[in-house]
């Protein structure tokens, strides 16, 4: 199974590998969600949705369905 942002545990970090180009909103890229950048799961709402992330110093929240589109590699 491929790892995505949605598979991170709270406090865990990963590196963005790639994402589903056609589905990902441009806004997410503009907020700094780019391949190669580090992403940390800061906090989750109940049922792990939405997810509160720190992407390369930018703090943002996205829904689980969007998080599933972003493939990562877990660092720790």
């Amino acid at each position, binding site marked *: 199974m491929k790892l995505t942002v949605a598979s991170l545990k709270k406090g865990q970090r990963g590196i963005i590998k790639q994402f589903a180009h056609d589905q990902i909103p*441009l*806004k997410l890229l*503009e*907020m700094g969600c780019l391949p190669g950048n580090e992403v940390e799961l*800061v906090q989750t709402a109940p049922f792990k949705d*939405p997810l509160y992330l720190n992407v390369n110093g930018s703090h943002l929240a996205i*829904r689980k369905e969007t998080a599933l589109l972003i493939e990562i590699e877990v660092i720790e």
Partner: protein
Amino acid sequence: MPKQINVALIGNPNTGKTSVFNHLTGLNQQVGNYPGITVEKKEGICKLPRGLKAHILDLPGTYSLNASSLDENIVIELLLNKNDKDYPDVAVVVSDVENLKRNLLLFTQIKDLGIPTILVINMADRMERKGISLDVELMEKRLKTKIALVSARKKTGIEELKELIINYRQISSEPCVNASTIAPDYFDRLRKAFPNQSLYKLWLVITQDVNFGNLNRKTLEQTSDFQTKEKSELKRLQQKETIVRYQFINGVLKETFKKDITTAKDLRSRLDRVLTHQVWGYFIFFGILLLIFQAIYDWSSYPMDLIDTTFAFLGEWTKEVLPAGVFTNLISEGIIPGLGGIVIFIPQIAFLFLFISLLEESGYMSRVVFLMDRVMRRFGLSGKSVVPLVSGTACAIPAVMATRNIEDWKERLITILVVPFTTCSARLPVYLIIIALVIPNERVLGIFNLQGLTLMLLYLLGFGMSVFSAWVLDKILKIKSKTYFVIEMPDYKLPLFKNVAINVVEKTKSFVFGAGKIILAISIILWVLASYGPGDDFDNAEAIVTEQYGKNLSQEDFEKHVGSVKLENSYIGMMGKGIEPVVRPLGYDWKIGIAIVSSFAAREVFVGTLATIYSVGSDEEKTIKDRMAAETNPVLGGPLFNFASGISLLLFYAFAMQCMSTLAIVKRETNSWKWPILQLFVMSGIAYVAALTAFQLLK
């Protein structure tokens, strides 16, 4: 006289752009609308050294020039249209030192348009605490700009920024990223097809669906020797553009920006651990709501009582001082009570906007969006619907406009449709006066005021009803739309007093002068309708009373009876009698009927109408509340405002769609009459049924 320098303030949301604007312009600002649309247009005049002046336009916050909302379109349309009278001589991009990387994305795009651009790095006072150091000189060189280090909080750097604005001609207008590298062939063909246009501008026109005067996407596509690309391919290129820009920015920041992480253990994560906690987060949110409502009810009651008695006294006083006549009556019975009906709102509106702007300025509102998204989605709403629903407690009009940042059309439409159920401040005076009449002023469990609790229940009812109807709409509406949800979680900040104060003053002012005009006009019309009547009975009121009661009445009682006979036979009395059969099953008399009908224009008219109706023909100095308490029910006997009719009225006002301005705004935002008309009939129908059921069960 030298020409004013046109300055456009641009920046991401949450960078303190508005604080910078407030510092530059002081109170020398005005808020209007862009022509034809309801986006707020904030502009002001800034006094510069050496007698110069600048016209400052505060553009809506945006993350990039790739517009995804109406607000963002404004920014692009202005920046691409050299003929616009607001077209900037110089652009000022405001950024936040802690989010510099993301903020610079927009900066590089604006730079590519060839406009001289100043970079403001705000929140410079936080640098030391966060362990940040900057090489400003090198950064200026790499970004081909001038930088002002500003702290809006500590008011530093503003004078330096003004100097830069004066000398804007010395700023390079050269781009710093060459966008055409993302697809050289494509851009080459573009350049050949339109040699006279700026390349980046062409690119923006192709990728956005916005209007740029005579140049739009269609004309580009129709030009024979130029073929544009598929949508998905364009999107890929936009993604590539974003990546190229970030590569450039990363390079610049690597050389010029240092952050010592060890000193950066911050308040944010500690606060977030509690405020966004899966359990405590919700408790705290609910607690804050409770506090707001309790506070509004308790604190604003003092100024409101004062206003109420002051206006009662004023009406009486003008009657004594001015010579008796029609004109004096118009002033003392029409205009003064009408004005009182507007002024009495001010304390609550001010308090409500105070709390809302505190929550927004502090960064807490985004946490609420995060906490509530999942719950709201179950009802077809979005976490971002929480902000409109909470703002709806102030006024539905800004709330409907606040739905613009909901990306998904279906979620946005549902939010617009259900927002008017939330308890707006216009309902407040109606609630307050009826609660004061029918709910005992007692405490339960020693702490909670029963009247305050009732008010809180009404707010919850409004909120519950909007959520419930959202759920129903979600099931009924068949709209396919692509959902996505991205929200920034800004840093916590201590709200700036100046920003909050200006916001409260602006919003209150726009209510008083906007809604106030309608209320005053209706009050005067009502007074005329109540002071004249068509038939003989109106003119012969004295004779009728004498005939009915004999001559033994005291002077005071006699006048009171004459007054009520006159009112019954006035134009308004006849209209009220006409609709009485419809409202009687709800427990109302024809006077309340009139107040309800007139408040279809705007709810807040209710109290003013009753004030006008009851003060016609009454000479005693009494407050509206006392007069209402003294009314008796002509059919059932007993006080007119009792528990049953009171609850019935409260429910009617909780659900009915009584606000022309909201209907107008919904029409504008949905671009169709279908939705506002649906709102008017469905909501008012629910209101009637609810009020009817309540009265019939409780009476």
